[in-house]
């Protein structure tokens, strides 16, 4: 058999030189070809804009203002972004699913046979997803800002501020960056844990439950000094107008949050190379 068969020469040539750009194109195809991507982005945007507007509306009503008198310290530009306590989970879950859905379907093995450099694959996947998320998140935070200011400007209190006011632009862009880092945390947890349930639990635990638990620790345990390092506590400083004691300044806080995600990615990369797929 061996001697009679011809030597195989493929007549099919690639359209592009294989490389990182091709891998990025492939990851973009994966992201845009799932309905769940669109749904989750819509939920994230809806929660941020909707809840942000609702919070702002609460601030304009008489009862709220009488209970908590207004001061010059009121963070008009960033107030609506407290709504991200919920939408961060939605975008984080999408990040988780980007990876765990490949594991649960078996697609990951096709991906790894197509691109055996697992580190590069994860890096490109995370980068493409982060870029898409940042675009969607920016549109969301700008919309949230303008909706919120329109609401706050109503009535006699007139709390609304302009986008050109102090800190406003930093807060709006920073909030979009915060959501992007949440999304990346999801990707890293997905790569680390591989199971959807485990990664979503870890995500909710880190972003949502840990800060609540912290409030129940004794103050003598340096609770507040420790709490400032928690991912969401540190990251959410980006929407603050003034820096409180025992809190990071806005950009340092966001950098601390990003540092956590870098740490998670580093561990994921080590495991990804070592583990059987």
């Amino acid at each position, binding site marked *: 058999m061996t001697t009679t068969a011809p030597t195989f020469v493929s007549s099919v040539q690639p359209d592009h030189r294989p490389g990182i750009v091709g891998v990025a194109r492939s990851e973009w195809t994966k992201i845009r070809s799932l309905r769940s991507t669109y749904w989750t982005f819509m939920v994230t945007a809806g929660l941020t804009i909707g809840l942000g507007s609702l919070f702002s509306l609460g601030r304009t009503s008489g009862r709220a203002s009488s209970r908590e008198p207004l001061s010059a310290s009121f963070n008009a530009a960033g107030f609506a972004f407290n709504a991200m306590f919920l939408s961060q989970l939605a975008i984080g879950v999408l990040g988780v699913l980007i990876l765990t859905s490949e594991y649960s379907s*078996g697609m990951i*093995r*096709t*991906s790894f046979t197509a691109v055996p*450099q697992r580190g590069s694959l994860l890096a490109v996947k995370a980068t493409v997803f982060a870029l898409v998320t940042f675009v969607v998140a920016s549109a969301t935070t700008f919309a949230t800002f303008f909706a919120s200011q329109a609401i706050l400007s109503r009535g006699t209190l007139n709390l609304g501020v302009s986008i050109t006011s102090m800190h406003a632009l930093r807060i709006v862009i920073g909030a979009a960056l915060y959501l992007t880092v949440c999304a990346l945390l999801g990707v890293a947890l997905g790569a680390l844990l591989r199971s959807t349930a485990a990664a979503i639990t870890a995500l909710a635990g880190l972003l949502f439950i840990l800060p609540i638990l912290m409030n129940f620790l004794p103050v003598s345990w340096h609770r507040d000094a420790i709490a400032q390092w928690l991912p969401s506590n540190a990251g959410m400083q980006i929407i603050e107008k003034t820096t409180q004691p025992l809190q990071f300044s806005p950009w340092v806080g966001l950098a601390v949050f990003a540092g956590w995600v870098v740490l998670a990615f580093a561990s994921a990369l080590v495991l990804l190379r070592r583990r059987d797929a």
Partner: protein
Amino acid sequence: MIQTRELTKKYGATLAVDQLTFSAAPGRVTGFLGPNGAGKSTTMRMILGLDAPTSGSVTVNGTPYRQHRYPLHEVGALLEAKAIHPGRSSYNHLLAVAQSNGFGPRRVREVLELVGLEKVARKRAGQYSLGMGQRLGIATAMLGDPGILLLDEPVNGLDPEGIIWVRNLLKALAAEGRTVFVSSHLMAEMALTADHLVVIGRGRLIADTSVADFVASASSGRVRVSSPESQRLHQLIAEKATEMGPIVPGVDGESPSFTVSGLARSAIGDLAVQHGIAVHELTSEAASLEQAFMELTADDVEFRAQDPNLAIHHQPAPVAASKKD
């Protein structure tokens, strides 16, 4: 060319693949046979660099798989049917895989046509049958028009028409000079498709041989004799043969028959003529590939039915039978 050397994989205390050395050469279909749980899929994952060997090595075109940068042009693989996100259409699935290695929509349309899925290419893969999933898996493997194809149980879940299609496709691909390495637990199917066999049981190499040699080596060497004077002939032969089967009465007016081991057909025929006995049948009982496989792997089956006679000596399964798990 795929080459493994002393390839070994341990999962904890379980030895899944045990010092496996074999190669799959270009220009022929190499069947990778073994009972369920023999280590076929583990071996295939190690060939593709998905699982790391505990010891030993495996190369594809002389290089470990993970050192290939964009390998779809060299190796195409089908590991499991329907390893696709259920919400993604097969067109987008193929496009994503193609793009990662520099191929575009043109090639995606070509492979869709090759496997006959062009009409359902925009449907979500979650709605596909197992057979459609297999076709999509083969399309994925063919994206880079590779010189090496690795297919794990590709006929699993296909209808008879699909099985014939896969069989002809694999033969045609090998005839073009490609290396075709295809695993199966269906012996009868491999007898029709493969040129060469690598047989494993419990992770160990049992045979690495051509299909014809494999059957011959495990062949019983039994001869079936049928005669109206079978009683007398049986006695005459018994003096020379090593082993004799009991006389079985004939049905529908046929003469009674029995089996003989250790005596050639010619010797039996001559003996009958010398004693003036008429012989109605004198046939070699060639073992089917299935029987040969059963005999060789009888000690290496991991899961077995309670009555070993039922599991080992039953009739060969029809070609169209498919794995149910």
